Structure formats: structure tokens, C-alpha cells
């Protein structure tokens, strides 16, 4: 459904992403892992149109989106969350989601309709009791739910999640994993996620891609990848491998 | 139009440019370190010009001699303004907007206080040595701008030395580049801000004296000088004192060149249109971070 071919992105002298190939099949949950600074978020930024890649192409459902603008990519059905959540702080939880409903693929015309639909989404992520609370009053976990709800509000077919599990307790991780599965199963959204929390990765992903210094290091099922000596070396250093 | 004339206008432009550099240096400093857009910066320059004027006219004290006193007084004034006005504003959600608005209010107050007490008639600061012209071959360089320029360069030099060769100065730079990091290594951001702002106002005052060597001044000229400040800051970027210095010189040079070939009124249009284009295509400025 989504694939990247030979994607490279440099900043100044530093190659954040080098000649990176990846593909995610429809209905999959794929993870992207790698040490800090390895280029993961940059890749997401390239996919969502915030940076044009220096080389390479990004293709979504057979359509080339390499040089598309972010809003166009959103309209085509790719949604994303951010590593550090970015809610619309001054607005209510409901409105945060409602605006996304209006401008997303459902393309509604008025805030009333948008809010109605937003309420359903809030129920889906478990935030409906907080619907009138202003976003800046939310706790961290709630903000993550909000971020998710807002991303889902544009009715995407593909979702990019950037380190959603960071800072969550064990119970919260389990809840979040269940939520991810529901997004895939009930809403039919394909998921590509960046993650550091191994428990979450192992618990959700069918396929894992490992990135290191911008290069693809390994790819495969979670069991395979976790045994891969190169991967272990990248994370833990040579001696442990 | 002789070569001499062209050279004279260009040199004159460069001299003016150097003075604009000093005028903008302090503004750049506060914007860079504290994210404070001090619209009242130029009005303190005008205040400095008036102070030197009164020392000269009433106290027979040569402007160059009254400078240290002037700078000191304005440094303290800057500290007071910081404590009373700027510091509360740095707590706002949108510091840039809030600081812009509050310093605009301040500028109006100071401008009109000056206007009320000293009347809006234009003044000139003309110590005897600014009358003559200095000659390189056939090229005449008016001594007013020349002294102003030398003053400006010296002041910028001092500022530079402070920033790069004193502990406090380096602390200021650190805060500029990375406020959180600076705080983490034990630099007191409060003190840095206080010193920075005081320094900024003091430099504004000194630049006002330099400006007075080349322009007549009156309270409402502060708005025109503010535009120069913006001009230099945007072109030079908010990154460094040197960047500002070069930007000022460049702008002076362009002013000189345009003045040599165009009617004077269009020079300003060109300048601001140029600025506009730079803003559009390279807003970080030519030397910006």
C-alpha cells in the first residue's frame, strides 16, 4: 500500500536517511525501529510531505506522492501522529477532533456535524468523558489518545504513529496495543509505527524494519529481527553480538 | 557625474551604514537572547542623542566625553525597564507579540514625554570637529559621519569583545544559543537578561549620539530610525553582532550607490523594497542562524 524506493534525505552534511527502501502491505502493522537519531522521524516527515526527499520515491496505493504537500497527502488518506504530542491546546478535546473531521476525507461543512462525528471518535479512543475539557488540561496519556483520535478523524486508510508508547505504564501499554488492533481490525487502517518500546513492537508488529544511521539494517518478522546479530550490535555494541 | 562624486556618495553611504549597524546591534541582541522584539529601541537612541545634546549645550561637555556617563545612565535605565516592563512580559504565551506591543506602548510614552518637555523641533549635534571635511586626494569625507562611524565601529568592537572575551559575555551568548542548556550549566538567565537588556539600551544611546552626527533629530524621528533597525536586522539576521555589522555596511553601501544615481526619494523605496525581497526569499537574513 505504501512503499518507498531509494529514499534519501540529507541535512547539511548529515545523511538522515540513505537509499531507504520500505513497503507496507495493506492491513499490516509494521514497525520501524532503530537507535535514537537513526532517521525514523525524518522518514515519516518525508512520507508526509514535510520534506521532499533528495532522491527516491514514495508511492501510496500505486500513486506517486513523493512531492505532494502535507495536506494533499492527508486528503489521500495518510494520517500521522507526532513524537511529542501536539494538541491544539486552546481548544476543547471535542473541537480538536472536530476540525480534523471537517478538513479530512469526510470533508464536512459545518462544525455541528463535525462535532457529532468527533464524539464517536472520542468514544472509540475512550475520551468522550473529557470532550469539553481544554486540551492543555489533559494528562499525558489522554493527550496521546487525543492525538490518535484527531489522526483517525480524517478517515485515513494509513496511519503513521510516531513513538506513541513512550512514557506509558505497563497497563497503558496493553490498552494501547488493544487500541491499535482495533484501529486495524475495526477501522481497516494500515499502520506503520516508529517505536522504542520493545514490548509494544513485539506485541503488535507483523514485520519490523530496522534503521541505523539512515540505512536499512534488517527487515523481517519480529523473532527474526530480534535475533539478528547486526541489530543487536547496533543497539548494544559489538561485544554483545 | 564625476568619479569623485560617486566615490564620495558611496563612502558616505558606508559611513552611514556603520552607524546603522550600531543602532541595530542592541536590538538584535535582545531579540536573539530573549525573543523580545524591543520596538522602543530606537527611541532610546533618540534619548541618547538628546542627552548628549543637553550635556553639550547646557554643560559644554563634548559629546564624545559625555559618552561614558551617558552609557552608564542608560545601562541602568535599561535595567529598570527590564525589571518593570520586560520581565513580566517574558511570561506571556506569545512573548514576541506581547513584547512588541508593550515596547510599542513604551516607545509612544517616551517619545511623547520628550516631545512634551523638549518640543518637537529638530535638533542638531554639532561639535566643532564635525564641521570640516577630511580629504583623501580629491575625495571629501564629511567629518560628522566620519566621527560617527568611528564611534560606531569602536562601540561595536567593544560589544564584540564583551561577548566573546568576557565570562559574562560568553554567558550571554550561551543563553542566546541555548537557553535551557545555559541554565543547566549554572548560568543565571535572570542576570543575563538584565545585563543584556541594559547593554542593549546603553548601546542604543551611544548609537543615538552617532546618529546625531549625521542626522537632525526630534522625538518622532524614532519611527524612521526603527525602520532602519528592522532593515539592518532582517538583512543581517538575528544571529550575530558581526552579521549585523556587515549588514549595516552593506545597506550603507547600497544607499550610497543608489543615492549617486537616483533621486534621493527613490533611495528609500529601493532600500525597503530590497528588504522586502530579502524577507521573502531569505528571511534568516544573509548571515542569520
Amino acid at each position: 500500500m505504501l512503499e518507498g524506493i531509494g529514499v534519501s534525505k540529507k541535512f547539511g552534511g548529515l545523511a538522515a536517511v540513505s537509499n531507504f527502501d520500505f513497503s507496507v502491505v495493506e492491513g499490516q502493522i509494521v514497525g520501524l525501529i532503530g537507535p535514537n537519531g537513526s532517521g525514523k522521524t525524518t522518514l515519516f516527515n518525508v512520507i508526509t510531505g514535510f520534506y521532499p526527499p533528495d532522491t527516491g520515491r514514495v508511492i501510496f496505493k500505486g500513486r506517486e506522492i513523493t512531492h505532494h504537500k502535507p495536506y494533499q497527502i492527508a486528503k489521500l488518506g495518510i494520517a500521522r501522529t507526532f513524537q511529542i504530542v501536539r494538541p491544539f491546546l486552546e481548544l476543547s478535546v471535542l473541537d480538536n477532533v472536530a476540525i480534523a473531521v471537517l478538513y479530512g476525507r469526510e470533508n464536512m461543512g459545518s462544525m455541528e456535524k463535525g462535532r457529532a462525528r468527533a464524539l464517536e471518535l472520542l468514544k472509540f479512543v475512550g475520551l468522550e468523558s473529557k470532550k469539553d475539557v481544554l486540551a492543555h488540561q489533559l494528562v499525558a496519556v489522554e493527550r496521546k489518545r487525543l492525538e490518535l483520535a484527531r489522526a483517525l478523524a480524517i478517515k485515513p486508510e494509513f496511519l503513521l504513529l510516531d513513538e506513541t508508547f513512550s512514557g506509558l505504564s505497563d497497563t497503558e501499554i496493553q490498552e494501547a496495543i488493544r487500541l491499535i488492533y482495533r484501529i486495524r481490525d475495526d477501522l481497516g487502517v494500515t499502520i506503520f509505527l516508529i517505536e522504542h518500546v520493545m514490548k509494544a513492537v513485539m506485541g503488535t508488529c507483523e514485520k519490523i524494519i530496522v534503521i541505523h544511521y539512515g540505512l536499512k539494517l534488517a527487515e523481517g518478522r519480529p523473532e527474526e529481527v530480534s535475533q539478528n546479530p547486526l541489530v543487536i550490535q547496533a543497539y548494544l555494541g559489538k561485544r554483545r553480538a | 557625474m564625476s568619479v569623485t562624486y560617486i566615490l564620495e556618495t558611496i563612502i558616505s553611504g558606508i559611513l552611514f551604514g556603520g552607524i546603522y549597524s550600531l543602532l541595530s546591534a542592541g536590538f538584535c541582541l535582545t531579540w536573539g537572547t530573549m525573543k523580545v522584539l524591543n520596538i522602543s529601541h530606537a527611541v532610546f537612541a533618540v534619548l541618547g542623542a538628546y542627552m548628549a545634546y543637553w550635556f553639550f549645550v547646557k554643560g559644554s561637555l563634548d559629546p564624545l566625553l559625555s559618552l561614558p556617563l551617558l552609557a552608564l545612565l542608560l545601562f541602568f535605565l535599561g535595567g529598570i525597564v527590564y525589571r518593570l516592563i520586560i520581565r513580566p512580559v517574558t511570561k506571556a504565551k506569545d512573548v514576541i507579540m506581547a513584547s512588541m506591543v508593550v515596547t510599542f506602548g513604551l516607545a509612544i510614552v517616551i517619545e511623547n514625554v520628550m516631545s512634551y518637555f523638549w518640543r518637537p523641533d529638530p535638533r542638531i549635534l554639532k561639535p566643532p570637529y564635525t564641521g570640516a571635511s577630511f580629504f583623501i586626494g580629491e575625495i571629501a569625507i564629511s567629518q560628522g559621519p566620519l566621527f560617527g562611524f568611528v564611534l560606531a565601529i569602536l562601540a561595536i568592537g567593544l560589544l564584540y569583545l564583551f561577548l566573546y572575551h568576557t565570562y559574562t559575555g560568553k554567558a550571554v551568548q550561551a543563553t542566546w544559543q541555548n537557553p535551557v542548556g545555559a541554565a543547566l550549566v549554572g548560568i543565571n538567565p535572570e542576570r543575563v537578561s538584565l545585563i543584556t537588556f541594559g547593554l542593549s539600551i546603553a548601546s542604543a544611546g551611544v548609537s543615538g549620539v552617532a546618529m546625531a552626527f549625521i542626522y537632525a533629530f526630534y522625538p518622532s524621528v524614532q519611527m524612521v530610525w526603527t525602520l532602519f533597525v528592522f532593515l539592518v536586522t532582517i538583512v543581517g539576521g538575528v544571529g550575530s553582532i558581526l552579521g549585523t555589522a556587515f549588514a549595516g555596511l552593506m545597506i550603507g553601501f547600497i544607499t550610497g550607490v543608489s543615492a549617486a544615481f537616483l533621486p534621493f526619494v527613490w533611495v528609500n523605496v529601493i532600500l525597503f523594497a530590497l528588504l522586502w525581497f530579502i524577507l521573502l526569499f531569505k528571511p534568516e537574513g544573509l548571515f542569520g542562524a
Partner: protein
Amino acid sequence: MELRRGVILNLEQDKKLVDNRTRVRRLMRTSIVVLIILLFLFPIIRPPLFFLTLFFSVFMYVALTESWNLMGGYTGYVSLGHVTFFSIGAYTTALFMNRFGVSPFATAILGGIFAAGLAGLVGYPVLRLRGAYFVISTLLLAVIMQLIFMNWEFVGSSTGLWFKLLPVSMETNRLIFYEVMLVLATLITLLVRRVEKSKLGAGLIAIREDEDVAKTIGINTPWLKMQAFILGAFFAGCVGGIYGYYMSYIHPDITFNINTSLLILLMAFFGGCHTWTGPLLGAVILSLANQLIVTFIGAEISRILYGLLLVIIIIFMPDGVIEYIRASQFFQKERTS
């Protein structure tokens, strides 16, 4: 580390809060309607001309500040160049009236259109800038336009332009303009309010809150910003057209006066720029105060007081009056920490 700031909803208190809110809203709505009707009828009691002039000025600032707020408050792009569009409106009206004898009230619309045209032209490059750079570029726009108009024969350069006067008495003159500006101010405020509650308004607010995120939820940010910019310019142009005619003489120093741009900014900021009531409040209070002080005390003192007032207000309420009220107990739900 996130501080836990949970919200506990107590059904009874919640209901009281909702009741309070709706009560205040209804009260505000009715009182504003009543006020507007009273204002329309005001001239019937034949008040001294001074009041008509005073209110004209207030209405004008309300119109200008509301129209500015589309860009400044909702979108978060503070323009110091609003005065440019105002002037284009004034000059367009003057030229069309003088050369073609077109009715001034129709040409005011034309003034709006020309202003909107300029906004469209300039908007594309300017709106790509962010933050302080945007602000300064709009300021420069005003300055450059002023310089151009000062030196351009066609628009009268430094001599200015005269309007043909209406063939009526001074009193009727003032009366007509009073009513016209009141209508304009009301219309513009209502339209701005309509935008605020519309899909466009929601999009603009999203841009203000977080422009990058807005893009990821499908908002075509350049296009929305352009709409706000052009619409605001159009309104300002119309106001300018009426103003020019009212003053019967325009000159670059008067119309392109940066002070006006900054005044608008202050009014919006003072009243709180996140909603339509803010600029209204700010414009009414500040322009009334300003006019009164200028008339009775003197220009310089008035500016000093005005400046001081501004400084003090920003120091105590850095985010504007309406925000301050919103944040106060009356509207807040109970918080536990």
C-alpha cells in the same frame, strides 16, 4: 514531567456553570442588539456634532479591528500593514469619484475590491513567512506603499487628493456618515463572527494553534490564509473608502499612518483577539478613550497616557482582556490538583 491537572465533573456544578454561561451569552446578545438599535436612533435626538464625530471614529475602529482580526487573531498572523488596505480603499474611492463621478458608496466597495486585489498579489509571498518576519514584512509593505504614494503624480503625491463634497449641510453630512459607518461596522462584525463559527474559522484557528499539524489534518494552509488575508483587506478597503470621503481630503501621511496599524493591533490585543467580541470591546474602549483624551487634554498627554495604559495592561494581562475574563472563576470548571 507533566503535572497532573485532572478535571472532576460534578453534575450539579456543571449544570450551574452551563446555566451561567448561557445566561451571560443571552444577556450579551440582547444587550448588543438593543445597543445597536439605540445607536441607529441616536441622531434623532439631535446631539452635538461632536458625538457623531466621536462615534464615527469608534465605529471605524471597530470595523478595522474586526477585519484585522481574521488574520491577526484567528490565524495568528499579526499584520502591521492593515492600514495599507485601508488607504488603497480611500485612494480608489477618491480617484473613481473625481475622475468618473461614480457614487462614493459604490466606490467604497470598489475600494475594497482593489484592496483585496493588492492582498491577493502580495499575499502569496508574504504569507509564507512566519512569526516576527511576517509582522515586519507587513510593516514594510505599509512603508513602501506610503513612499510610493508620496511620490506618484497620479495619486497626488505629497499634495494629497480632494474629494467632491456631498451637496448637503455639515450636519446632514455627519449624520449620513455616522449611519453608514455604523452599518459597515455592524456588517463587518457580523461577518467576522460568521467566519469564526464556520469551517473556515475552525481551519484558521487550527493554523494558529499549530500550523504544521493543521496541514496533516488536510488543511490547505496557504489557501486558507489567503482567504483570511483577502477578506480582511476587502473590509478594510471599504472602510477606507468611506473614511476618505468623510475626511474629504486624503494624504499619504494620514492614510498610511503606521500609528493606525499599531492602534488596531493594540485594540485587538487589549480586548483579546481569539474571538469576535475581543476586538469589539478593545476598539470601543480604546478609541473612545483616545478620542476623549485627545479632545479634552491634548494630543501628547493623551498619547503618553495611552501608551502607559497599554504598558500596564500588557504587564498585568499579557494575553488580553477577554482571555483574562475567560480564565477567571466565573467560567472555569472546578479544578483539583
